[in-house]
């Protein structure tokens, strides 16, 4: 995709009107662009720019939320095209905010990014007890599990969840963690398979962890 085209996706992500994104995606489809390219280079490529701007404090959470909303609308329009191409799911991702924690903005952003990137996402919501993860994982056989926490107290629960999953699930999935107080050091301490500081990086991390050499 040309730089200019990515730019127009970026503008559509930042636009307060959903119709800008709707028109753009429809136009691209109309011109015969590959849905995968629209998704990966247009929507996700532009979202990565928003992610970088957020990291550099050039935009704030409302702008990221707006971009995620607009991206989702773009994906909705693109979905029938993607299905027509019969693209296989990139993998199954189970995500939840750990028990005792009711914050979900970050988790929701990760859910949106992962859905957009082609994963089948099972969102268990907020305040998810350990046992709920243990119930869902054997049933759904996810490739990846994401744990989120915003509180210093609840992030400690992640350790219990990780240990429980590895003890009770044969062939356990990879587990990634995130949330405002979480750091790479903490993730290493609790033996998570990965840590990402924002939703765009979470998606990139997922792609890296699950790339099985073709």
């Amino acid at each position, binding site marked *: 995709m040309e730089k200019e085209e990515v730019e127009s996706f970026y503008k559509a992500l930042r636009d*307060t009107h959903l119709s800008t994104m709707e028109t753009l995606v429809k136009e691209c489809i109309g011109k015969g662009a590959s849905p995968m390219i629209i998704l990966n280079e247009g929507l996700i490529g532009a979202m990565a720019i928003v992610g970088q701007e957020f990291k550099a404090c050039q935009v*704030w*959470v*409302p*702008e990221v*939320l*707006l971009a995620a*909303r607009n991206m989702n609308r773009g994906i909705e329009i693109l979905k029938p095209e993607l299905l027509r191409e019969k693209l296989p799911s990139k993998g199954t991702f189970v995500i939840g905010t750990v028990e*005792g924690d*009711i914050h979900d*903005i970050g988790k*929701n952003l990760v859910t949106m990014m992962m859905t957009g990137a082609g994963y089948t996402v099972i969102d268990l919501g907020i305040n998810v007890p350990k046992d709920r993860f243990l119930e869902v994982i054997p049933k759904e056989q996810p490739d990846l599990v994401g744990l989120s926490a915003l*509180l*210093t*107290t609840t992030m400690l629960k992640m350790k219990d969840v990780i240990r429980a999953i590895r003890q009770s699930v044969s062939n356990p999935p990879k587990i990634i963690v995130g949330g*405002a*107080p979480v750091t790479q050091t903490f993730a290493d301490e609790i033996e998570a398979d990965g840590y990402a500081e924002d939703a765009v990086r979470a998606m990139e991390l997922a792609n890296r962890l699950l790339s099985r050499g073709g």
Partner: protein
Amino acid sequence: MRMESGLRSTPKRRFLSGLLGGRKGNRICVANPTSIVSVELMEKTGVYFPEAHLDPLKMSQLAASGCEILGFDSIMPEFSVQQEAEALGCVVDWGSPTMMPDAKTHPVKEVEDLTIPDNILEKPSMAVVLRALEILSRTYGDRAAIVGKVMGPWTISYHLCGVQDFLIWTLTEPEKVKELLRQLKEVSITFANAQFRAGADAVVIADHATGDLVSPKAYQDFLLPVHQEMNRRIGGPTILHLCGNCSDRLRLFVEAGFDAYHFEWQVEAKMAVQEVNHEMSLIGNIANKNVLFGGTPEDVYKQARYSIQAGVDILAPECAVPLQTPLANLKAIVEAAKEGYGAQGLQP
């Protein structure tokens, strides 16, 4: 008995002096604009969440333990951020001893969905705070500073509309956001003034347009005029509580007319003191995560001494403390304060 530095040796004098930028006295005040309740404190008093959010006597007993057991100079009885939300129609899950309350429904999608009841002060979740303040004022008014707390219109909007929707509206429907803030500020003003009548010495206004979520410009455009009006119409001293790294907007809080700002460790204390230039007092800023919750009493002591030396006006945890915070760490704040200002701190 020797009176140290005369007049300012009682908790209330220390608090008022620190809050309004007055004489420094023999040592800094230790106060809590936000909750210092921990599981250990609940066990010691036999009063637990969620009952303490909804029963005035229990609320006042648990709040007073901060002064009785920990030695803080203030007593602040509102532990949750949901008292107004329930009165305005949110369904609130009042939580448990290890979980803070949370609004389960967000009934306002349009301005027309918002109804502010005429008798809002009589709604149980708000009346309980007024009754608790009356009890505390009667019982501890001669010993401690009694601090009230209200949610500002931004925070109430989060509960009523949902955080995500409300933040997106700041971009897509700014007029709607302004109208919600305009109407909801009346709740904050009414509640704050009622708290003063019930015996509060100061009222905290918690309005979570936090530094990590929104830009200084968003504060300036949406909240600054609202906060200015609130400070004109609230009859007693106000303390702004607004978390996150707000280093880039301290002057806006001065402009808003607050008597004090309750701030986080992320905001460097020395810089903050310089920036606000005694035009507003600073209350803070012992870090919750690594120090009060995750550190030792020695870590707390070091950070408290740093804040004192930096020239902070009142010493306090940076935000509501995690419920599992050890009591010894909270007591260490008071111990650090008792050592006075030290040579550097005596400089003007």
